[in-house]
């Protein structure tokens, strides 16, 4: 190979004055960076992914990892990444796959949106004293209510209400399948959402029997591969989500490599052991918006209209039109997944270049649905790069009913966003099926961490609302008056329907 190697991504070193030679780094590194030879611990930096497992387990803080230890000649156009991708493709002639979400350094709109607070003319509300109503109902809402009088003179609701999901906080955990992540990760999150009173997605991979106790807090997914989908699965979910697209890779399907299909994954997905699980790009029974209506109704009919059905789409240029079409189908909620959404693996060119930011998608979907007079027909769930309670509050102010978090929940379980999810070697026991690695994640402890995170964000959301004089989540929803744009251009402010700071 005339190309030779590219420089290692990371340089690992051990401070021997600090090191007590306990060998925890060797035990913990599943990528094989460390090995013992005689009385020395040797390091192979090239294998390092900066997952920081060794650093976090080292009792003496003796390990140091630096990124990009060797510089290329700096160049504003021919970045390191551009050069390395070309070298990779010159070697392979193939499509480059990568893990996690969009890794480009593009401006994040959330960071240029500022929230409001009360001062002299209107008082803020103290959440310690006043109740903060964060309860959120997802699903169709009637445009009007009809009542009738009973013989005894009581008033009774005459309108038939559509089934809704009741959330104690507008934070849910998005769909990450068993197969992509471990059962212990799913169990940790399932225990957390049950305790908090919210929901999580099962992902396209069926529902493992150990999750049945949490099924009332799980949303089952029907994606183009229909893996693990049968009538029992549909009946177990609290709601059903049809996945049309995903923010990390809009327009294309998914592919679980055979290496990750062990016995348990095989049973749950109902596919043979070790076989590739290929989800086609489109659902082959949906070639039009009418077909989508048919799939939604088939799911409702199969479950006797007892469950809300969500439709998840990737945020792309036509997101508002798609969402309006979905609102006019029988769907109960539309999930929009922005271009920063995570994934186990996606073609890099899609991950980094296809789709639009979730902030713009929420605003344009909410606006279009209001314009068409169907906003009450459907709930909006936003996902893809929600990092904090501030992003959550801004999403709701832009028009979302609730959010899905994915990467944030994984970080609460230990993930350090190293982006090597596809290798089945995750040293944190999250994106792996290797039993010795999976056992590193204790579902009981994991559940506490996930619920702590959601609890913390929920408290912060209440404080932010109180500070803005709002005591109910409904009053924040779509309330763009409580947002101001900072250093955003006029076109962007118009799309977001937000005034500039100072106005």
């Amino acid at each position, binding site marked *: 190979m005339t190309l030779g190697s590219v420089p290692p991504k990371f340089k690992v070193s051990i401070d021997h004055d600090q090191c007590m030679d306990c060998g925890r780094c060797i035990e913990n590194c599943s990528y094989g960076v460390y090995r013992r030879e005689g009385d020395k611990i040797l390091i192979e930096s090239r294998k390092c992914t900066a997952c920081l497992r060794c650093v976090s387990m080292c009792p003496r803080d003796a390990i140091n990892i630096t990124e990009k230890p060797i510089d290329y000649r700096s160049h504003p156009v021919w970045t390191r990444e551009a050069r390395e991708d070309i070298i990779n493709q010159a070697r392979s002639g193939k499509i480059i796959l990568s893990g996690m979400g969009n890794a480009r350094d593009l401006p994040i709109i959330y960071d240029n949106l500022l929230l409001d607070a009360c001062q002299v003319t209107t008082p803020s509300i103290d959440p310690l004293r006043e109740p903060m109503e964060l309860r959120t109902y997802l699903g169709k809402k009637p445009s009007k209510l009809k009542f009738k009088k009973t013989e005894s003179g009581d008033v009774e609701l005459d309108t038939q209400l559509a089934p809704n999901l009741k959330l104690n906080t507008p934070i849910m955990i998005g769909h990450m399948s068993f197969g992509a992540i471990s059962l212990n990760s799913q169990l940790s999150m399932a225990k957390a959402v049950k305790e908090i009173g919210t929901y999580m997605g099962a992902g396209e991979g069926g529902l493992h029997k150990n999750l049945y106790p949490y099924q009332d807090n799980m949303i089952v997914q029907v994606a183009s*591969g229909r893996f693990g989908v049968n009538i029992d699965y549909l*009946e177990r979910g609290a709601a059903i989500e049809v996945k049309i697209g995903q923010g990390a890779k809009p327009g294309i399907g998914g592919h679980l490599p055979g290496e990750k299909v062990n016995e348990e994954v095989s049973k749950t997905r109902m596919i043979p052991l070790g076989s590739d699980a290929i989800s086609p790009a489109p659902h082959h029974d949906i070639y039009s918006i009418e077909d989508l209506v048919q799939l939604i109704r088939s799911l409702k009919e199969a479950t006797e209209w007892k469950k809300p059905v969500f439709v998840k789409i990737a945020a792309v240029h036509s997101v508002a039109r798609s969402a309006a079409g979905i609102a006019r189908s029988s769907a109960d909620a539309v999930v929009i997944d922005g271009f920063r959404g995570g994934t186990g693996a996606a073609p890099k060119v899609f991950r980094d270049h296809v789709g639009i930011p979730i902030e713009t998608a929420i605003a344009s979907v909410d606006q279009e649905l209001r314009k068409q007079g169907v906003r009450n027909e459907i709930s909006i769930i936003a996902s893809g790069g929600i990092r904090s309670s501030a992003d959550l509050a801004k999403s709701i102010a832009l028009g979302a009913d609730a959010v899905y978090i994915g990467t944030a929940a994984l970080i609460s379980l230990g993930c350090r966003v190293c982006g090597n999810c596809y290798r089945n070697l995750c040293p944190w026991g999250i994106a792996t099926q290797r039993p010795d690695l999976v056992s590193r994640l204790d579902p009981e402890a994991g559940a506490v961490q996930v619920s702590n995170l959601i609890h913390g964000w929920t408290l912060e959301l209440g404080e932010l609302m109180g500070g803005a004089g709002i005591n109910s989540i409904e009053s924040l929803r779509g309330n763009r008056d409580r947002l101001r744009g900072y250093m955003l251009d006029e076109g962007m402010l118009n799309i977001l329907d937000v005034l500039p700071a100072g106005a």
Partner: protein
Amino acid sequence: MKTVRIDAKGMHYTPLNQKIRAAVADGAEEIILDNVLGQRFIGDGLRGNVRIIINGVPGGDLGMFMSGPTCIVNGNAEHAPGNTMDSGMLIIHGSAGDAVAHSMRGGKVFVKNNIGYRGGIHMKQYEEEVRPVLVVGGTAHSFLGEYMAGGIVLVLGIGKEKAMTDIGIGSGIHGGEIIIRGEVDDYLLGLGARKFKFTESDLERIAPIIKTFCEQFGYDPTEFLDTNYTRIGPASSRPFASKYVWE
């Protein structure tokens, strides 16, 4: 045998399915639906061993997510009968639309005449003993058995000079097999599909399927047991493995 008769004339599919479910819960072993005209989702998610006789033309997604029952259609069927079906049987005394047996994991779909595009698409198989089967008496349009991951599709080409004349057979197939009576031109095969030798043991394997099919529609199986077939399967069980490289 406990038989229930339902007149479906002018009835929406939801009350129709409610009546079917109620009849099954009440122990009906046979349900006869008269005047069916375009009602979708008949037998959707239905469990049990009931036999449903459909007189008329059912709408799309007949027997979707179905687990156990048998539906006999005295007429044609629309889009995607047997969609994501788990087990049971659909016997269609006529033709059917696109995406027949889409993602079917188990059970049998027998169509007397022809089917539309994407028949048997993404059919899959989990356990050896529950093998999904789609048999088409006539012919099928393009993309037959596309993305197929398991099971068997059999096309008999009854009354046709050639059983298959449409392109894209088995494109992206990574499991299962497509068996077509007579010769199949190479250019009809999709990307990732290839022909395999059809052997005596293959014929033995499909003979029970042919016999069951013939029983349903009153054909003599002899001529189908003494003829040539083309067997099409995946060129690789991992058709996309060579397309990608990791970052």
